[in-house]
């Protein structure tokens, strides 16, 4: 994971891993009916370095802390997080405005397999808000385009108005160096695009299993069935990567909450191969 050994952010993270560092909100955007994006700048003036797929623990002072994937461009720009308001902490985070302070601990976790994907076709499959943790990977794929083969994004959302980063997805769709297919679970009159689950897009899509890497993110049920659909297309378990989520309190492998079988999601994940996950996902309430 990219760490500048000279950076104060990194040094403090290791010296006091449970103490947040201060960042300020540069801007807040409303990216989907229940999702807001915060653009942050570290108070110490350093650029926040991270790998696509990693996450931070964000503190809403006075409320609490939550694990949120980084959803920006690792190569440039502010530190970006897309947050869905589902509990008191995420709600408080989505209500922050320009200038407000936020606590940041991170980056944590194993991210998307960008190195393993070099020279290969990359199939990115996103469901709902799962596009947010995948967006840094897409920026990397498009930003260093020559390193990768065919790049495809298959994106399933709930309804047309729930399509996350819609304008950006439309722009990607207009490019010649990436294939973008979008579908929604249901729609009303006025939507002329695909309707159906995202697994339908997979069965329609042709891949060369011998040189494809898949990166999948979305609700766990969706990821399970997407993995199955990808395997039906001949893709091997080792070539399918999922990003998992569990309850997190420390993100440093000390609190025990994020365990899935023998893995700590914060430390061994959140990105895992389907080969690693398959036996774990097969046991209910593991």
């Amino acid at each position, binding site marked *: 994971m990219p760490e500048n050994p000279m950076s104060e952010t990194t040094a403090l993270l*290791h*010296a*006091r*891993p*449970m*103490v*947040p*560092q*201060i960042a*300020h909100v540069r801007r807040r955007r409303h990216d989907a009916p229940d999702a807001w994006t915060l653009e942050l700048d570290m108070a110490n003036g350093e650029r926040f370095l991270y790998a696509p797929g990693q996450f931070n623990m964000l*503190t809403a*002072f*006075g*409320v*609490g*802390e939550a694990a949120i994937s980084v959803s920006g461009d690792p190569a440039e720009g502010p530190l970006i997080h897309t947050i869905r308001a*589902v509990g008191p902490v995420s709600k408080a985070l989505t209500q922050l405005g320009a*200038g*407000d*302070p936020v*606590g940041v601990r991170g980056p944590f976790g194993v991210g998307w397999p960008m190195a393993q994907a070099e020279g290969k076709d990359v199939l990115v499959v996103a469901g709902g808000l799962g596009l947010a943790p995948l967006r840094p990977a897409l920026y990397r794929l498009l930003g260093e385009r020559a390193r990768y083969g065919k790049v495809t994004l298959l994106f399933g959302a709930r309804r047309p108005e729930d399509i996350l980063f819609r304008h950006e997805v439309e722009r990607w769709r207009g490019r010649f160096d990436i294939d973008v297919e979008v579908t929604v679970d249901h729609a009303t009159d006025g939507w002329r695009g695909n309707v159906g689950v995202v697994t339908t897009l997979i069965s329609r899509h042709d891949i060369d299993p011998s040189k494809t890497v898949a990166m999948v993110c979305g609700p766990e049920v969706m990821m399970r069935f997407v993995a199955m659909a990808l395997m039906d297309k001949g893709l091997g378990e080792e070539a399918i990567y999922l990003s998992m*989520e*569990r*309850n997190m*309190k*420390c993100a*440093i*492998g*000390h*609190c*025990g*909450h994020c*365990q899935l*079988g*023998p893995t*700590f999601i914060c*430390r061994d994940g959140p990105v895992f191969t389907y080969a690693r996950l398959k036996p774990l996902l097969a*046991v*209910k*309430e*593991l």
Partner: protein
Amino acid sequence: MPEASSGASPERYVISVDGLRALIKALRARGRRVVGPTVADDAIIYDDIDSLDELPCGVTDEQEAGRYKLAQRGDDAYFGYAVGPHSWKKFLHKPALRLWRAERKGDEVTVEAEPVEPQNFAFLGVRACELKAIAIQDRVLMGGDYVDPHYKAQREGAFIVAVNCGEAGGTCFCVSMDAGPKARQGFDLALTELTSQGAHEFLVEVGSPAGAELLAELPRRPAASNDIDAAEAAVEHTAASMGRHMPEEDVPALLMRNLQHPRWQEVAQRCLSCANCTMVCPTCFCTSVEDHNDLAGAESSRTRRWDSCFTMDYSYIHGGSVRPTVSSRYRQWMTHKLATWHEQFGTYGCVGCGRCITWCPVGIDITEETQAIAASEKA
């Protein structure tokens, strides 16, 4: 971390009861906070010790699944009991610890990390199983990519006086977990209480230079061969009187291939999900965090406190618990302790101290549960 030199036989001495008294005094004179066993609330717990008189002299414990009772011994042994509801994690991995404070002035927030305050502990009476438990928590909290600075501060300064058990506790199974009863490493000094030869003495093994230095201040004599024999006999007697044991086989593999075994439903009929076992277990390390703030919103802080995988909140995500049933939570605890811990940290999480068996209100026995699953495969 003090370790006995492997291979070479450690130096051994004998001290009297006065010597033990002097040991405690000498530790306190060095500014150490001495913590050891003492009687409180009808149990032998670990607390600050001012002098030898506070130790449970002539007291023993009677333990069985779901039962704990103190009783009078026929002698004046100072360590004539097994382990109680406390473990040393109470001091190394504090039950409640403030992590940081934040102060808000308008849009500006400043965060102040809670200063690390080494307590300069001296632990008196650490059993072999507990030494192993401490080493296990060392691996979890200091041996990964991130180090817990609070644990580290208490741990690195701690002086450890171990005690070799002269009798097996009612629920002990350290032998089958390869965690005792002999203290082998991780101590500065190790005592074996000798009351069988007329005099009341302690065989002392030196485990570190710091231990040797302290011992040099105490009245002592070199150990004679009969002292050493008596000490070894005591430990052997303890090892031979274990009341329970884990099955001989590959327990991690056994449990991981039986994740859907009906025994999990069966134990869930009895388990109250009360979390006692996790509280008393010397290796359980799970914590949670809580944010607090004053009414004006100007000051906030975060506290870390012990947590348990038995609570419904523990695995809460997306509107519900990943483990909503008692059976899945019991399975999580037991498979973590005996199976997945291996993959995570290279050892068992269990040291066979028996606390979870003793302090379970319904007397669930982790060895019995494992035996039941193993037996069902042979049936």
